[in-house]
């Protein structure tokens, strides 16, 4: 799948996407936070903006939410420009990173906040608030105040407060970053589940690639205010568009080399460990530095005929062993093994990989970093 394709067919009149951004930019003084991004969101589906801190992903969310004004570019919801619509008139709701629950209101009043502003009837408000709280299992806590709730509970209330308004698009700004590991995993499942049940559009910002994989139908990888790649989680993982994406997503082994041939979506790369042929990203071009991308799970030891390497260290990870080996030229390779490695640190062994699982990307991590 090429970047730019949609995961699910866009809904709405004429097959228009729900949200469209084109050349969207935001500049703060001399800092270019977002440098002309183009993307679309479907009316249903879970999309993640993924990138390290400072890559502009939160700024994009704030532009869509209406908390920042775009410096240039286009932003449309259902084909109508959002740029002059104030935040309180956008059919979009946000789950804030710190939850931003109103401390002076009870859980129930927090969730009812948006509906009371829309002057819905008392009975309708009570019914919808009850339903939203039940959906996030917070009904028994409805009379509490935010300060009496744990982080996970506040998170659920923030979620209920947003979805009760039935927005066209739900924005989630690093919503799980304040939770501990276990709770985060549980909430990931719940978020995904909720999105499926509501059949709504969720746009989630995170720096955690595991979280992005667990949740998303579609991932947009950001770097320095630009979109580096967008695609399904599987495509982003197995066919990264650049050395940067390959390194940021799952920390692939990257062997730097020179491209000697490109033909029919495959390239031949000359590296210190030999010449390899594999599928390649469209940006790979003859004569440019490129990297062979090898996932740790695709590297394995062999009895003979492999690459000579010394075991540098071994980490037991529970279900797997992560083994780092160093080849003669100093290249370091990680491999993920299901069984205990055949050699202790310091010993020599031979490693190989499945050429079909390799992938060639433009650039090297030195250049990317």
């Amino acid at each position, binding site marked *: 799948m090429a970047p730019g394709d949609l995961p699910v067919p866009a809904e709405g009149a004429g097959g228009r996407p729900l949200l469209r951004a084109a050349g969207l930019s935001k500049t703060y003084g001399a800092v270019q936070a977002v440098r002309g991004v183009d993307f679309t969101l479907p009316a249903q589906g879970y999309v993640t903006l993924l990138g390290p801190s400072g890559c502009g992903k939160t700024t994009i969310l704030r532009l869509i939410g209406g908390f920042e004004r775009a410096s240039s570019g286009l932003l449309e919801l259902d084909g109508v420009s959002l740029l002059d619509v104030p935040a309180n008139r956008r059919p979009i709701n946000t789950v804030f990173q710190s939850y931003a629950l109103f*401390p*002076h209101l009870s859980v129930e009043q927090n969730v009812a906040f948006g509906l009371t502003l829309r002057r819905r009837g008392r009975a309708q408000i009570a019914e919808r608030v009850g339903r939203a709280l039940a959906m996030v299992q917070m009904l028994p806590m409805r009379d509490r105040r935010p300060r009496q709730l744990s982080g996970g509970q506040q998170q659920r209330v923030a979620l209920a407060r947003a979805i009760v308004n039935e927005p066209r698009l739900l924005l989630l700004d690093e919503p799980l970053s304040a939770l501990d590991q276990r709770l985060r995993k549980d909430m990931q499942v719940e978020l995904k589940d909720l999105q499926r049940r509501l059949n709504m559009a969720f746009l989630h910002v995170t720096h955690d690639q595991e979280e992005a994989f667990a949740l998303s139908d579609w991932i947009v990888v950001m770097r320095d205010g630009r979109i580096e790649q967008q695609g399904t989680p599987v495509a982003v993982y197995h066919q990264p568009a650049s050395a940067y994406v390959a390194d940021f997503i799952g920390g692939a082994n990257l062997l730097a080399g020179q491209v000697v041939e490109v033909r029919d979506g495959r390239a031949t790369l000359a590296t210190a460990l030999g010449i390899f042929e594999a599928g390649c990203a469209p940006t790979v071009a003859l004569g440019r530095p490129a990297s062979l991308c090898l996932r740790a799970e695709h590297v394995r030891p062999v009895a003979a005929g492999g690459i000579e390497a010394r075991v540098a260290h071994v980490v037991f990870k529970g279900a797997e062993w992560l083994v780092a080996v160093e080849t003669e030229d100093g290249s370091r390779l990680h491999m993920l093994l299901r069984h205990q490695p055949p050699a202790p640190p310091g010993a020599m062994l031979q490693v190989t990989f499945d050429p079909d699982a390799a992938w060639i990307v433009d650039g090297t991590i030195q250049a990317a970093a």
Partner: protein
Amino acid sequence: MERTRRLVIAALTWPVAAALLAFCVAPLLVLFAYSFFRVDFVTIVPDPSLANYIRVASSPTYRGLILRAIESGLLVAAISAVIGYPVAFFIAKRGRNAKSALLTLLLIPLYTGDLVRIFAWRVVLGAQGVLNSFLLWTGLIREPVRALLFSPFATHVVLTYNYLPFMVMGLWLAFEALDDRLIEAAMDLGAGAVARFVRVVLPLTVPGLLAGGLMVFVLVVGDYLTPQLLGGSSGITVISAINDLFGTAFDWPLGSAIAWTLLGLLGLMGAAAAAAMVRSAAARAMTAGG
């Protein structure tokens, strides 16, 4: 260890408490005692009775003066709140690097003396003053407006000017503690500017409003110079009445009774404000009670 610490704390607090008792509470208690005595020509006779309080309560003049002082206090506190909200918001949320400079500017009028400020306002509001000259020049008026100076208007303008910084300080602190993301969240949920103020900003800044308001109120009620020098015929206040009773009229017992009536009323209002503050939504949010 624990004992030493308690001794140190006691050593540090008791002198202050003792000084407060000696120099602040004791004179008030003396006045309190006086308020039950009576004057016989030029001597104060310790003959306890409630006569002075009955005189205060039954005299339309004194009742009126006390009422007017409280009205002025409430009015100036209310005007200060209306002016103070945008100012405090601006300093806290838009002040950025200029924050400390803006706060200093706000306090500069307090560095000058009362009299300097009052006479400066005379220059502004007088018949030949800056404001009248300007209005004459624009042709909006043909005769200088004499009611600008020596009127309740002048008094309230200058009282507001004098005590506004106290209101702004109270509100500024409340705004500093107010999380911007709550305002964004309200906007996100569909609240326009008015709804954001009424439903989020106001309830969460009530402690600052009450603290600032109480301060302005008490200072205005106790202000003596401003009405005296700018109020003209309206310059007679309950404080100047007390002053007269202690001075020329030599009726300390009645003066004490008025002072204590005023003090009692202020105390009640202060207690009401404190109770409101404790029960305010913001305070409940802080302590996570009920």
